[in-house]
């Protein structure tokens, strides 16, 4: 099992290389890993405090302040107009929903496929899912003309027996996002319980109290583990279709509409691929931040992880390109005037810079960079790639939402959209909110699932095959 076959001394150099490369065979004792994770978690340095205070303040002003101003004055503060009734809010909504696919994809899909490299960063990715969803969930509220009436979308028995319209994609959205938010939060929480118990055992003061409550009295008995691992299995399988449904339904917000440039059957998979693309890219950026700003993280997050993320990113970028091209060529080929104009508007019109930005950021740059193993293994390259791809994905949503709305079947009523300061402020505020929440969470919960890493260690060992050593994997689960 976890015990290693003794290796000949002449292979020690090679072993060192392999250990440097792979976390899961670079075994450190559980105590040490616990200590490292807790040290990183409890590192509430002055810089961190300043950063959080700054991010929190900026969020309060740019997001909540601007939102209050918007609510009290009217939706006219946004740059939307007739006929572009949806603007940056919906763009950001789709964007953050996309980001939220990272955690699920990395964690659930890779777990289902037993991709071992996932282990150290599943939690970092799952946290992104939850916080991105929280950010995304704000937008349907922000963008409502009468936010204070949002609860009319909730099916609750009322005096008039008036219910929401379950045929509306927005109600589907409501249910899908809530299911996904609940599901992904629980999915984040379940594997967290043993680590919280570990933190409970190792901390003092308020943290002890907090973790005592949060760990729910976890002891690690056979029963507990049996139910927990079973539930994680169920979750991993269940959350994947939910994740697909969420972004499909978000794409249906557009695709069901009688709107040229939106009414496309390919939007479901196209949006999902885009979401995973931006999610994976965001994981790369966030992991870089985690690795560079938190203590001891260079041990857990290694170039091999960035390498694998890079490969995934490249593959998904290709997938996205496939769908994008599919959608584009069919519209380009079709003869309808409005569609032709939409294509012209995308590629040559006012929105063309954004459209080309999308193409460059989502196709050209990833394809040019990510084929190279050495670049993939450089964390800062992957950080930049994450940012670039996300800029591209934001541009994609911007083009789809506002670009398609700018052109319709009545040329008299075409329009051109300019985001207003309030909109930009709110969109920016969600980024700071995300960073704030993530920063806070990174100091409150163990960001590395230690027990999973240890589990991985047990599953991996080095074996001598012929004249060399190879890591071997035993199926532990």
């Amino acid at each position, binding site marked *: *099992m*976890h*015990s290693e076959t003794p290796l000949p001394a002449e292979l020690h150099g090679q072993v060192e290389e392999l250990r440097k490369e792979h976390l899961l065979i670079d075994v450190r*004792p*559980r*105590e040490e890993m*616990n200590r490292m994770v807790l040290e990183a978690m409890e590192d509430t340095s002055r810089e961190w405090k300043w950063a959080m205070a700054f991010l929190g303040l900026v969020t309060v002003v740019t997001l909540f302040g601007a939102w209050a101003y918007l609510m009290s004055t009217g939706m006219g503060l946004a740059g939307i107009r007739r006929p572009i009734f949806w603007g940056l809010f919906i763009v950001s909504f789709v964007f953050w929903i996309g980001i939220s696919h990272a955690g699920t994809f990395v964690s659930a899909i890779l777990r289902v496929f037993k991709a071992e490299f996932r282990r150290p960063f599943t939690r970092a990715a799952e946290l992104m899912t939850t916080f991105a969803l929280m950010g995304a969930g704000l937008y349907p509220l922000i963008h409502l003309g009468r936010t204070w009436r949002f609860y009319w979308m909730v*099916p609750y028995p009322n005096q008039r*027996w*008036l*219910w*929401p*319209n*379950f*045929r509306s994609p927005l*109600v*589907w959205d409501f*249910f*899908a996002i*809530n*299911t996904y938010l*609940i*599901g992904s939060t*629980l*999915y984040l*929480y*379940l594997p967290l*319980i*043993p680590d919280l118990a*570990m933190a409970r*055992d190792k901390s003092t003061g308020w943290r002890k109290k907090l973790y005592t409550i949060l760990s*729910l*009295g*976890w*002891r*690690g*008995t*056979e*029963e*507990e*583990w*049996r*139910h*927990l*691992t*079973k*539930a994680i299995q*169920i*979750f991993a399988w*269940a*959350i994947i*279709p*939910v994740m697909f*449904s969420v972004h499909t*339904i978000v794409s249906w917000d557009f695709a069901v509409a009688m709107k040229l440039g939106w009414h496309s059957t390919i939007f479901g998979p196209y949006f999902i691929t885009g979401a995973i693309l931006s999610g994976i890219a965001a994981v790369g950026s966030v992991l870089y931040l985690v690795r560079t700003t938190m203590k001891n993280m260079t041990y857990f997050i290694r170039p091999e992880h960035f390498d694998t993320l890079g490969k995934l990113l490249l593959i998904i970028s290709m997938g996205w390109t496939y769908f994008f091209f599919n959608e584009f060529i069919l519209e380009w080929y079709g003869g309808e005037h409005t569609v032709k104009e939409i294509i012209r508007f995308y590629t040559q019109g006012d929105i063309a810079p954004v459209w080309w930005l999308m193409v460059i950021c989502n196709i050209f740059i990833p394809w040019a960079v990510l084929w190279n193993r050495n670049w993939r293994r450089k964390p800062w390259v992957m950080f930049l790639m994450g940012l670039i791809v996300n800029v591209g994905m934001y541009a994609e949503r911007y083009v789809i939402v506002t670009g398609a709305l700018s052109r319709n079947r009545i040329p008299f009523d075409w329009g051109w959209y300019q985001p207003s300061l309030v909109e930009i402020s709110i969109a920016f505020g969600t980024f700071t909110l995300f960073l704030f929440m993530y920063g806070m969470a990174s100091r409150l919960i163990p960001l590395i699932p230690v*027990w999973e890493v*240890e*589990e991985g260690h*047990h599953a991996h060992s080095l074996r001598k095959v012929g004249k060399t050593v190879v890591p071997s994997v035993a199926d532990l*689960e």
Partner: protein
Amino acid sequence: MYGGYQGRYEPKIYVALFDDPEPAARAVEVLREIGIEDRLIQIQSGVPWKPEVLGRPIKASAVPKYGMVGAGVGFLTSIALYFGTPALYPLRVGGFPLFTMPPAFVLIFELTMLGLIVASFLGVLFESLLPPVVGKRVYHPEVSDGAIAVFFQAPAILLDRVKEALQQVGASEIEPVEGSFV
């Protein structure tokens, strides 16, 4: 009046700590040989070792059943919402019939999944009796450092034998602990 005697036979819980699953598995074997039943043994560990590894009885988790029930509840809720509410207040939109199938699947799917997920989570809590409601339960904090803690309930009369046997298979220490298994 028979306190001393009774004390000698009153079963108490002890813990033995191991670093690896192999000695732990052997310890379980030893305990069984001594005559301590499986139900009087509890193992706590920092990673989910499989029962086969530790030589423990294999049991199925009931969590999937919770999930199924939850999914069923979600399904029925979605049916009630989707097909029930239009009947309560019939409103026509877009030339659609009052009851349409395609959008129904969306709601059915989402609510079924929601039921499944929430119920599975609750299943874990219920089945593992988390969080503890009353009483103190046995625990050893070394577990979170990766140790495998073998708890067993043995009358004091057997303790010496057990200690000896366990030390043979590599237990670092054996000490009594306060609390109950569940």
